[in-house]
């Protein structure tokens, strides 16, 4: 019953928060209670055990469960220590809707259910308004829905061998379109509210979606694992280079953060594409970093970005070190694992990734400065995000064990 509760309770919390919008305190309490109960259902769920209470087989994989817990923790952190300008009830409304969708994506027993959940999330987010047009907001996720559906048809139909390869292309392209990495980058308006911007797709829903799509891909096209991996590594390297260069050179601070997510996703795609234990471990650590550290830091940088108050205090340099993947942060452990995995597979790949890692330094310094001079809740939040990242970097094994690795 836990997977059903993991989907249902956050969804109820989100609806409660939306209905009680006129009474923010009641909305906050109701959403927090249901959100915590949903998170408890995720924590208490047995990974890999299928529940069939609603006529649909639902099961959480260990990796997805671990990232759901991380996403829940990140949401709790950002709600408790939300910047003064952000209304917590609204943050909870959208966060819990995303969490319910992520739980549904993670638990979906078939690719079709996963696709339908992505479609629902896309329509809900697009209909919420925002500075981008309705069609623009829908474009990336709907393209993902179509590509994943076509991939499923190609994988399931009888026919020549190349149909399976088309399926592999469709799955990688669909995943890339949903997350918003190259070549399907979502249009980004720096002034848009975070909940209605493409950030939730790349930093909140994306990690669970990627793991779920790849799990389904392994079942649908077991013979095309090599092609799938090669495509992901190729796309990953492209995103590493483009994401870092754009994050460094773009004039807009919020856009620089957006590109930095793309760069991190480049490494994640490389790790997942390696299809060996070290690569998977590296990818999971990087995804923890995106959800638990990079996303909260982005949220706390927005006020400072609006006020154009960059700063060079030690906290800014620490944040830059974390964003760059320096020791002892989680990114360092992930990079070591990734290089070791790439060396096992094909050493020139390790060389290419190693050269790509150098590109993280200039944009990370810039992003660290963009946090300004943190005060109050923002300072506490940044401190907690950095501390969590250090703990994961120093003691990665418990976090990897949580993900079944």
């Amino acid at each position, binding site marked *: 019953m836990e997977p059903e509760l993991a989907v249902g309770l956050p969804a109820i919390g989100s609806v409660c928060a939306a209905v009680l919008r006129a009474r923010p305190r009641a909305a906050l309490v109701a959403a927090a209670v249901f959100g915590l109960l949903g998170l408890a259902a995720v924590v208490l769920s047995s990974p890999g055990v299928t529940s069939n209470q609603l006529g649909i087989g639902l099961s959480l994989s260990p990796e997805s469960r671990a990232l759901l817990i991380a996403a829940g923790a990140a949401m709790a952190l950002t709600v408790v220590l939300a910047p003064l300008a952000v209304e917590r009830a609204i943050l909870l409304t959208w966060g819990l809707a995303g969490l319910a969708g992520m739980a549904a994506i993670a638990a979906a027993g078939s690719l079709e259910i996963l*696709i339908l959940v992505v479609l*629902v999330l896309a*329509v809900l987010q697009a209909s919420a308004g925002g500075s981008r047009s309705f*069609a623009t907001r*829908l474009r990336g996720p709907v393209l993902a829905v179509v590509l994943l559906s076509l991939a*499923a*048809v190609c994988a399931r139909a009888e026919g*020549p061998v190349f149909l399976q390869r088309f399926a592999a292309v469709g799955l990688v392209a669909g995943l890339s379109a949903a997350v918003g990495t190259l070549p399907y980058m979502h249009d980004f308006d720096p002034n848009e509210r975070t909940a209605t911007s493409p950030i939730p797709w790349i930093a909140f829903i994306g990690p669970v979606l990627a793991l779920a799509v790849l799990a389904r891909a392994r079942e649908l096209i077991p013979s095309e694992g090599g092609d799938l991996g090669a495509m992901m590594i190729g796309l990953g390297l492209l995103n590493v280079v483009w994401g870092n260069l754009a994050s460094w050179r773009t004039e807009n601070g919020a856009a620089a953060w957006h590109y930095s997510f793309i760069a991190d996703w480049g490494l994640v795609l490389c790790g997942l594409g390696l299809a060996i234990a070290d690569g998977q471990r590296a990818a999971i650590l990087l995804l923890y970093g995106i959800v638990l550290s990079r996303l909260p830091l982005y949220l706390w940088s927005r006020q400072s970005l609006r006020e154009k108050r960059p700063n060079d205090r030690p906290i800014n340099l620490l944040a830059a070190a974390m964003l760059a993947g320096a020791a002892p942060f989680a990114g360092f452990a992930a990079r070591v694992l990734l290089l070791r995995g790439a060396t096992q597979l094909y050493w020139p790949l390790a060389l290419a990734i190693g050269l790509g890692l150098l590109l993280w330094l200039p944009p990370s310094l810039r992003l660290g400065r963009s946090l300004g001079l943190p005060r109050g809740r923002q300072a506490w939040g940044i401190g907690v995000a950095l501390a969590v990242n250090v703990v994961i970097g120093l003691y990665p094994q418990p976090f990897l064990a949580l993900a079944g690795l």
Partner: protein
Amino acid sequence: MSTTAAFAAWIGAALIVLSEGRRGLALGMALVTLGFAGLALAAGQVEGAVALVAGGGVAVVQRLRSGKDAWGVMPPGSTARVVLAAGVGLLALWISTTVMSGPGASIRFAALSVLGLTAARVLTPSDPPAVMTALAALALSVAVAAGVAGTGPGPAVYVLAAIVAGGISLIQVSEFDGA
């Protein structure tokens, strides 16, 4: 029966691409729904067919209640869309009958053509009523596409797709720039 149902679904999706008014869009959605329900029935999925009719029915009724009160089929400047509807249909027919093999060519044709046409409608500049209708049809086509496998997806996927299609059509979009 399955061949007729598949062509009905394609014509319905073509109407969604070619229409701007609420009546044209609703007729397109109704044809897609009936075509898909026929295909589900032919595959022995009675519960699935009922669910598709229910979900598609809600979408049709909702579409008849909002949007431009007209048929709006093939307004001036629709040549490219006519070519698109025919081209996607022919491509889907070729892929489903020649490239792919085995039983279930009708389902393959219907799924591929509706996926392609509704995607084109959503991804090109369109008014929200047309986009929402295309999204509802897209949701139904995701479930029908799962029937390409010999085993079929089971009623749960059809029911979920029907709920999604009906739910999408109930959402009100306030922004009409469609750019």
